[in-house]
C-alpha cells in the first residue's frame, strides 16, 4: 500500500522578481494557447498568475512585491469540489491534488464563483495556436475545448509520467526529483519549491510561512514566505490588487 502524499508548494515572495517564467512555462506544459484577440486580464487563461502588489504608498515610499497565485489545492471543504454539479472536480486522496476533469465539465462556472482565490479560468474561445506552433504541444496533456473550466493541477501529466517511470523501475514510490511541476522547474530564482508536505525532511511548511485567506479554513497547500509585514497583510485581502490594472479599470 502506497503511503499517502500531500503535495504542496512553498513560494518565497521575497525572491520572486515577477519575471513571468512560471506563467509561460505553465502554458507550454499544459497546452494553454496564446491570448485570443479579445482576451484580457479578466477572461484570460493563466493557471498561475503573478500579481504585482504594493504597500499603497506613493513614490518614493512605494514598495512592490510579486505574488504568484495558482490553485491553492484546498484540503478542507474544497469549495470548487463541493459546488460542482457534474462531479468534474475531485480531490485525489493519493496525492491531495484537486483535479479538474474537462470532459465532465458543463461550463456552469459555479466553481469559479466558489473559488476564493480566483484561480479558475473559463475557456471562452477554442484553443488556437499560430500556424505550425501546434507542433510544440506537449503530448502528455490534451488541449481543452471551449466552454470548460480549467485550473492548475500541479502538472498532473508529469505525475503520471513519474508514476510510469517508477513502475518501470519496479518501484512503488516515485522519486521526489522525478515529479516537479513546470513552474517550479522554470523559476530562475528558486522562489517556488515543491514537495510532499507529509515529508518532514523538507521545510515547505516553515513556521514563518503564511497562506492566502487562511481565515476561510480551506487548508490551502500553497505556503508563502515573506519577511515584509505589508506583504503578509496583503495576502489576507480578498484579491491581490494590481495598481496598474486598478487604475486602468477605474
Amino acid at each position, binding site marked *: 500500500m502506497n503511503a499517502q502524499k500531500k503535495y504542496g508548494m512553498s513560494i518565497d515572495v*521575497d525572491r520572486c*522578481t*515577477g*519575471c*513571468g*517564467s512560471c*506563467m*509561460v512555462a505553465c*502554458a*507550454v*506544459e499544459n497546452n*494553454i494557447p*496564446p*491570448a485570443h484577440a479579445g482576451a*484580457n*486580464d479578466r477572461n*484570460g487563461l*493563466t493557471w498561475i*498568475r*503573478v500579481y*504585482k502588489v*504594493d504597500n499603497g504608498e506613493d*513614490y*518614493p515610499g*512605494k*514598495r*512592490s512585491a*510579486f505574488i504568484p497565485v495558482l490553485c491553492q489545492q484546498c484540503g478542507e471543504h474544497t469549495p470548487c469540489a463541493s459546488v460542482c454539479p*457534474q462531479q468534474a472536480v475531485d480531490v485525489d486522496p493519493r496525492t491531495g491534488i484537486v483535479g479538474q476533469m474537462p*470532459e*465532465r465539465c*458543463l461550463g456552469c462556472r459555479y466553481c469559479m464563483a466558489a473559488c476564493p482565490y480566483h484561480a479558475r479560468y473559463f475557456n471562452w474561445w*477554442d*484553443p488556437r*495556436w499560430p*500556424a*505550425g*506552433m*501546434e*507542433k*510544440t*504541444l*506537449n*503530448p502528455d*496533456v*490534451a*488541449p481543452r*475545448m471551449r*466552454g*470548460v473550466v480549467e485550473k492548475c493541477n500541479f502538472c498532473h501529466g508529469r505525475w503520471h509520467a513519474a508514476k510510469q517511470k517508477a513502475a518501470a523501475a519496479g518501484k512503488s514510490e516515485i522519486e521526489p526529483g522525478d515529479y516537479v511541476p*513546470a513552474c517550479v*522547474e*522554470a523559476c*530562475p*530564482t*528558486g522562489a517556488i519549491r515543491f514537495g510532499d508536505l507529509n515529508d518532514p525532511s523538507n521545510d515547505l511548511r516553515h513556521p514563518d510561512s503564511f497562506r492566502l485567506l487562511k481565515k476561510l479554513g480551506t487548508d490551502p497547500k500553497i505556503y508563502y514566505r515573506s519577511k515584509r509585514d505589508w506583504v503578509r497583510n496583503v495576502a489576507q485581502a480578498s484579491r491581490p490588487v494590481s*495598481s*496598474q490594472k486598478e*487604475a486602468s*479599470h477605474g
Partner: protein
Amino acid sequence: MTTTRRDIFKFAGGSALGALLTPAPWRLITDTALWSENWPGIPRPARGEIRAKFTHCSLCPAGCAVRARCVGEQPVSLAGVRGGLCPFGVTGHQLPYHPARLRQGPVSEAMAAVADAIAKCGPGERVAVLDLRPGRTASWTARRAMAVLKNGWYIAPVQSPVAVDLTKARTVLSLSAPLLERWGTPANVFAVRDGFRLIQADPVESRTAALADLWLPIRPGSEEALALGLAGQLTSAETAAMTGLSEHQIESVGQTIGFGRLSLVIDRAMSPAVVALNVKLGGWGRTIVPRAEAPVPPEWKKAAPVTDLATVPDRSIRVLLIDESAPGEYLPWDAIEKKLAAGNPLVVVFAWSANGYGRYAKYVLPTPVYPEATDDIPPAIDSPAPCFRIAAPLLAAPAGVVTPSEFIASLAGLPPADALRERARAIHQGGRGTLVTYADAKSVPVKEVKPDDFWKALNAGGCWVGQALPPANFRAPVGQALPPANPSQGLVVLATPPAPSPASPLFTKLYQESDLLLAPNCIALHPQDAARCGVSAGNRATLETPNGKWSVRILTDSSVRPGVVLAARPEMASASGKVVRV
C-alpha cells in the same frame, strides 16, 4: 405465442424505463464534453519517442544551458540545466513559428546589389558590418571578411573590458543595472544572491529595486554622477544636487562600499567611470577581472579591428550590413543613419523578423532563429573565466534563410569553412581548460578528450571552460569619466531592460491576460504626470521624442518616478519626451 404490436411497444417502453435505472445514460450526460472535445478544431499533440537534447540558449548573452524535451526531433519544452530559465528561454522553441517570422527574402538579389555597390564605392566610402552581438565566432568571420575588403569596417557596440565575479562580492551597488532581471547569467546571480548585500540606485522601482536590500531612488541619468561622487571626484553636496539623494545617503553608501570591503559597483554596461570606481575600491583582480575570450586560430588575428559606431565619420558608409540575427544591444537608428553616405546608401539587414532595423533597410534577409541557428555565445559579463559554448540547433532551418556570416564571407571571397569547428580545434590544441557535459554531468580536462569527441560533445550541448586570466598580467583600466548629463527638461523616457524581440506569442499571458509586463504598445507614468498631460489610464496617446512618435496606451503607476515615462521598447528611450492625448 404470437408477438403483437402491443408487445413491441411494451418491450420498448420497458427497456427505456429500465435503462434509466442503469448508469449508462447518466454517464453519457455527465461526460457531455466527450461528444465535442475532439472536434477537428482542437489540435492534437504529436506522438513519438520522447528524448532529451542539450544546447545553449542564444537569445541573450547569458547563454544558459538548456535541456530540451523532444518528441522525435521536435522540441516541445525547454528547461534550464543549472536552474530555471527566463520566460524568453522557456518559450524559445516556439520562435520558429512566430507569425512575424520571415521565411523568404531576396537573397541573390541582395547579394548582387551589395557586390555592385561595393564595386562602385567612391573614395572615402566604406563597406561596414554592424554586429549587435560581438565576440561570437560569426563576428570573427565578419571581421576577417572586412579585413579582406580594402574599405571594410567592422562596427560593434562597445564591450566592457572587464568581467565581474559576483562570488567574491559582499556588497553590490547597482547603478540602474537590472541585476536580478536580465544582467549576467541568472543561474550565477541567484546562486550567490544570498551572499551579498544589494544596493540598487534606480530612478524607478524596477524589479531589481523591489528585491534589493536598499533602494536609492536617484534622478534619471545621474548614475554616472553617483559613481563620480563615490569616487571622490564630486563633493557630496554636488552629488546630492545631481542625484536627488541626501548627502547622508551618499556618505552612508560610500562607507558601506569602502576600500577593501569586497564591494562591487555595476551599471548596465560597466562604463569606464564604474570600472574606475571599482579599481579605486580595490576590486581589481577580486570582484572585477579582465574579460576573457575563448582562443581563436592564430590566422584569425589579422581580422579587422572592432570600431565603435561613435568614432565612424558621418556620411561615410556606402554599404551597411546589419547582423540582427542574434539579439544584442540596441543602437538608436538616428545614430546609425547619420553615418550612412548621402544619396542612396545600401542597407541590408539580416534578421528573423522585420520588426527591428529591417524597417529602414532596402533588403531584409531572413535568418535562422534560435533554436534553428548554429551559433556560439561569448562569455557573459559575470563569467570571469573564458568559455566556449555552442547553441546547437534543435530544429532544421527552413529553406530560403541565409546565415549572415556565410553571406558576408562570400562577399570577401573567404572559403565557406566551418568557423566554429576551426575554433573548437584551436581550443582543443591549446589543451587547457575542461569540457563540461550536461547529459552525464561530467567535467573532463580537455587534454584527455580526442578532437572529434570534443567537437561532438560541444554539439551535444557541452561547454568548454578555461581558466580566468591572471589580473597581474594586465594593467587596470583607467576610467575616463564623462561629465554627468544635464538634468532633463520635460519627461524622461526610460526603457525596461532590453529583451529579445519579438517574443513568443505566449507572452500575451504576461501583458494582455495579466499586467505583469509592460506591453510593447504601452507606457506607464505617474498619475500626477498623467493628469498634467491630460491623459488617464486606458487612454490612447502619442509619445513624442526626438527619436520619433509612437501611438501608445496609457497606464498609470505610482511606483514610477514623477517626470519619468516607462516604456517597453528601447527605441522609445529618450532624455526628453512628451505625451499628447489623441
